[in-house]
């Protein structure tokens, strides 16, 4: 059965008819074609599908889309503003924090939530905040350094 879902995605109002069994991840990727959000397990294990719901990072593979009614959702497509990359995006690109780039959207979203709540986190806090996001390429160090650099960048 299809259900009607109204919410805000990347600051734009969205209204969509989607299968009632679909997760937020599936509606974002398949119905709204916002494929920037990735999936690595669809079981809440890898963190690749993280999006912000009302500013809080959630694993969109574990959320039914209908639970997002009326919520504000931010995906990787919503990080850049006015044609400019978010400082996290810029630092990730400049400092080698994205290799294959597949885990990157989920990590950027998680890091944004951290910096929004704690503008100057310690290295230990960054590692803790990102510990639910698996990256298989980088060994995490360039990611952590990019988050530190973004925290220092003017926003």
């Amino acid at each position: 059965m299809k259900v009607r879902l109204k919410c805000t995605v990347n600051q734009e109002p969205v209204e969509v008819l989607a299968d009632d069994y679909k997760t937020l991840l599936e509606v974002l990727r398949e119905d709204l074609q916002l494929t920037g959000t990735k999936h690595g397990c669809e079981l809440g294990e890898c963190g690749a599908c993280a999006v912000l719901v009302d500013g809080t990072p959630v694993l969109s593979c574990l959320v039914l889309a209908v639970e997002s009614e009326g919520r504000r959702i931010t995906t990787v497509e919503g990080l850049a503003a006015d044609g400019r990359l978010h400082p996290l995006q810029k630092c990730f690109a400049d400092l080698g924090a994205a290799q294959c780039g597949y885990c990157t959207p989920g990590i950027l979203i998680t890091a944004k939530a951290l910096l929004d709540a704690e503008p100057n986190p310690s290295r230990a806090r960054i590692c803790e905040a990102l510990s639910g996001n698996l990256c298989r390429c980088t060994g995490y160090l360039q990611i952590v350094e990019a988050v530190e650099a973004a925290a220092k960048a003017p926003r």
Partner: protein
Amino acid sequence: MKPTRVIGQPRRRVDGRAKVTGQTRFADDIILPRMVHCRLLRSTQPHARIVTVDTGKAAQVDGVHLVLTGESFPISYGILPVSHDEHALCRDKVRFVGDPVAAVIARDEMTADLAVNLIDVTYEPLRTFASPADSLEHDEPRIHDYGDHGNVHKAVALQFGDVDAALGAADHVFDDVFHFEGNTHLPIEQHAAIALKDPDGKLVIYSSTQTPHYLHRALAKALAMPAAHIRVIATPNGGGFGGKSDPFNHEIVVAKAALLLDRPVKICLNREEVFYCHRGRHPVTMRFRTGITTDGKITGLDLETLLDGGSYGSYGVASTFYTGALQTVTYDIPRYRFRGCRVFTNKPPCGPKRGHGTPQSRFGQEVQLDKIAEHLKRDPAELRLGMIAPAETLTANYLRVGTIGLAECIRTVVDRSNWSEKFRKLPLGRGVGLACSSYLSGAGLPINWNDLPHSGVQLKLDRSGGVTVFCGATEIGQGSDDVLVGIVAEVLGIDPFDVRAVTGDTDLTPVDLGSYSSRVTLMMGNAAIQAAERAREILAGPVASKLEIPADRLVFADRRVFDGENPDRGVSFQEAVCIAEARVGTIGTTGSYTPPKSAGHFKGGGVGPSPTYSYTAAVVEVDVDAETGWISVPRVWIAHDIGRSLNPTLVRGQVEGSVYMGLGEALMEEQAFRRLPPRLSSALVHKFPSMLEYKSPTSLDMPEIFTDLIEHPDPRGPFGAKEVGQGPLLPIMPAVANAVYDAVGVRVDEIPVTPEKILRALQARAAGKPARFGPASFPEIAWPAPLLVTPPQEGGDGRASNEPERRSRRKADAGIEATAGVRPSTPLRAGPSIVEGRS
């Protein structure tokens, strides 16, 4: 070194913006009109005959477009020509839990999933082979009807010089047995593919593959289609690590379905399926017998390896030879015998994972060297410094080594880690371990033996000043697009962001063999230099005559072409292209790279040769709880002989990523299996096919890493570059095991080094038994008589004295197999050429 403006500078990779904005289009991100979805039915039996497959109910489900079984796939395929042992869907029997038996294509994944579970398969179970010991012991029933004998897929034996005499002449002979458990790639991106018929009726497939060229060949064969009517587009891979290097059954299934349905068909594997696809690290048991003189020289090595291959051939024959290939590239071993055996078992097929076949025996060799140093009362770093293989020479097994920066790597990590103050001097529970390694900068021989280039690059320049570079290389995260563009920009004196890369598309790009064996930077890079230098030459003539100076005075830099003696006199790069285009017509060039011929002319000599080798040394520091065995790694020092670092930002990422993956293998990762209880069929299943239970390191588990790059350009590499993607992983596992010994005085001769194994070794010591955990012995194997090859230092010519005349490997091969009864593919033009035209 000639000064460079792009090469050697830390830079944002050219595809960096796409990756941080979520715009990189991975295979599963492709959504096409009229697209339908595929799910596979996978075997629940580890080894069984297929009696019947009843698809009746599935076909009647509303929304189902097509149901396929093995009947639709009569032609076998496989990555190696010697083991075309796979069918896209099983026909007569299944060989592991997860082997695909049928496929449903439906309007959405949910419907396909529902229907696939309505397919009724009757199996007649066969004996399950769960371990190599099982497979060695029982010849029947055979898992495959090919292979050496019984369930032995391949047993090989090579001997270079009189090894028994060399061991007999040694002052000490060390005899050690090790085991390396299997593990898997775990790319975060699950494999996905989408196939369609293009408007001309030809087949197009987008896939998360590291090897579009080999997928192209496999599709042509398995679907009996002309290769020229198939277009393979490798989408950027969300991590590969070797796990997307085989042509996969799901790719062939969606291709067939798209042809039958005439609409796009997509598949994306779920995580459990990715674990069962595998093709990862072979479990290997190995025995090293090494002869040593009192002054620490190796007199000879006798190595035996036993590989658990799982259920199909995959890259296995190559993997087997690789377990014995690179020992001599690292250390001076004048005489060498290698015997390797790969057996089939009813588990997911093993194949290439980062380091392909070499990490297992690297572990054994480096731990044994640690034991030798201990016995000889020598410092392990100093012992190794005294036995490094000589540079620019042929090894006993006919591998031509280039530059060797290993001594500098060892000295660097010893110095940086303060080794001499730590080794055997830290308090109980803390220790340091050292290990070294070497790795190929690209496999010297192609998988399908032929004389064609291994990498081709085309360049297009036009009056816009834009440069487009085309190459079949595949971006798997390592930064191959950036290497390609960086080299072209350097040679033409423009900015990397002025160059557009078109890669991994068999219709648009010249062939590159793929992202495996750390071959791309060296091979694609050399082809790119050739293409770019030819383009520079085309521009230079007309610009020089306009400036009325000799062409050799021209400098290409800062988006200009100017007089080196009078830099104000010159033209912009765009003007230079216009001047040349007006003079010579449309501008395009090509470049090619073919590795040098290998020196060994014996069977098996094709695995191991490379244009040059990278070297690495690492020191790992561990903390071990002597009560519980709990282990953590606070610090790693690593030095890598890269020849020349093209983009240090990317190079650092490869080194640190290798350390990370090495620590995962060293400490926790295991592709392990278990039997279901009898009431649930007793099937042999993956122990934990989930990312939660298959443990891999998180950001909280990472140590501090101190990376040093040793840069002495190797003339064989582009701008002197060697590989970095795989070599730095290799020393990590043995360095961890050696550090555990330094910390608590017990040997764990088995990977992974888990707290449980450390604890058992500690308990063994407390009970007065040897302070060790590891295999007790190496199994009895009926080895074939070895091929006898005299080492070059003893006057050998690279041939085996007891091998029948070898079939020439220059057999006709246009690069794509022509299937009987099918129109041959369009002949490919071999060799380099400059393409110029006038309109």
